[in-house]
């Protein structure tokens, strides 16, 4: 994971920073240069919520190399409200306990790391409320 790429997304992964379109109110996570709904270029700083419901999910059993030790793990699309849906892992929950409609809260977790000597990459996972 190159440092600049990881560092650029920190405000989103650490503090859930998003943009709110000044014209139509759409919340963009991550922020963008142009609003896809109305074409406006003006935004204010906002934050996505940290609680939501599972909309759909799956259990990853054959995992990419950085995640092999964590398999099986659950990934889900979580509806955080205000039209914002995110993809995240569901932690602290057995795969067979995850249900569509389940309430989760975002918690700060280690997402991946680059071997034993690369940088450690943090972010959010949903844990059952």
């Amino acid at each position, binding site marked *: 994971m190159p440092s600049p790429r990881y560092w650029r997304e920190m405000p989103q992964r650490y503090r859930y920073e998003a943009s709110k379109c000044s014209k139509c109110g759409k919340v963009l996570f991550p922020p963008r240069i142009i609003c896809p709904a109305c074409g406006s270029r003006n935004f204010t700083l906002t934050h996505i919520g940290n609680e939501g419901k599972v909309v*759909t*999910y799956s259990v990853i059993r*054959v*995992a*990419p190399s950085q995640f092999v030790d964590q398999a099986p793990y659950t990934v889900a*699309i979580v509806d955080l409200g205000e039209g914002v849906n995110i*993809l*995240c892992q569901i932690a602290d929950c057995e795969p067979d306990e995850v249900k569509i409609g389940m309430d989760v809260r975002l918690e700060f977790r280690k997402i991946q790391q680059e071997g034993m000597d690369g940088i450690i990459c943090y*972010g959010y996972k949903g844990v059952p409320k």
Partner: protein
Amino acid sequence: MPYVWLGEIMKDVAVIGIGMNRWGELWQKSIRDLIAESALLALEDAGIDRVEAMYIGCMSSGLFTDQEHLGAIAPDYTGFCPVPGTRVESACASGGAAFRTAFAHVASGLSDIVMVVGVEKMTDVDGAKATFALATAADQEYEVYNGVTFPGLYAMMANHHMHKYGTTRDQMAQVAVKNHKNGMKNELAQFRTEITIEQVKNAVMVADPLTILDCSPITDGSAAVVLCSMDTAKKLTKKRLVKVVGSGHASDTIQLAQRSDFSSLKSTALAAQQAYKMANRKPADINFAEVHDCFTIAEIMVIEALGFVEAGKGGKATIDGLTAIDGKIPVNASGGLKSKGHPVGATGVAQIVELVKQIRGEAEPGRQVKNANIGLAQNMGGSGASSVVHILEGV
């Protein structure tokens, strides 16, 4: 802004040559060999020895083989520099997008005879690297970063489809069963074996509910077609003329989470609408189709998006035999990605090869579609972020 087709085709375009090699783990063949092989077969089939331009559909020769600049490699190794080449990339829709670009090239009159080669050489790298390369089709920062895989993305769509419409595991598995049954008879398919619904359901789980047999494989392979203006085609070919009557292409959000619906494929629906409009045809007019069954659930969602069945009814239609070789609208008579294989960039072009083969009546016995006159090819990238649809009609 409504998304309709507002263009004008300057010249009718026909496909006069097709070529494809046997797909599989082709250790002896490099990416240059693969390109040249199918290209030369297509030239031979067209009865010509040269084209004016080449388009190459390939997702990631760089990550799989450290080789970029296929725009030079392709004409060089097919033996006809200084013909220009251009690589077109749209993840798994690279082949279809390359074909559409070539179609536009000929339709505009810029050149008269153009070749499209689709290729992917996937087996030089190990499984982990291949997975990494394929994952570049998804959102790196907000999907892949969090540990989701392609099977995981489609599995989430499957779970949503099952929750919303009651689609069952058996219905999904039937897609793989049907496609293997067809692929068994395809001399060029990677996996010419029969499988059962039980085998699909009991195979190793990759991402719940998808097992390894719900997923298309890693494959080396290529496919090529030659396009030219209809006037030139009439002079050059003795075989049945096949006209490109419709073409459509649309995008959707890269992130699955940002789509408006998680169990439908809007990019395919919009691309199909464009193609139907250009062709002046409706879904009911289509005799057969080649669609992008990267995962079993994909075929179910695609036949809904193409308008062959209503939303949510794709699973039932499949298990009821609507899309079987002897059904009302045979889908993936070639074996689809599941049985034929999925060398990513080659798939979209191989779909065109199949449409032409079927329309000419050249398919192997047991998988030749009866009355194959109008065929539709649907190619898709990532989790549905891009989709290309073509309609070909026998003249």
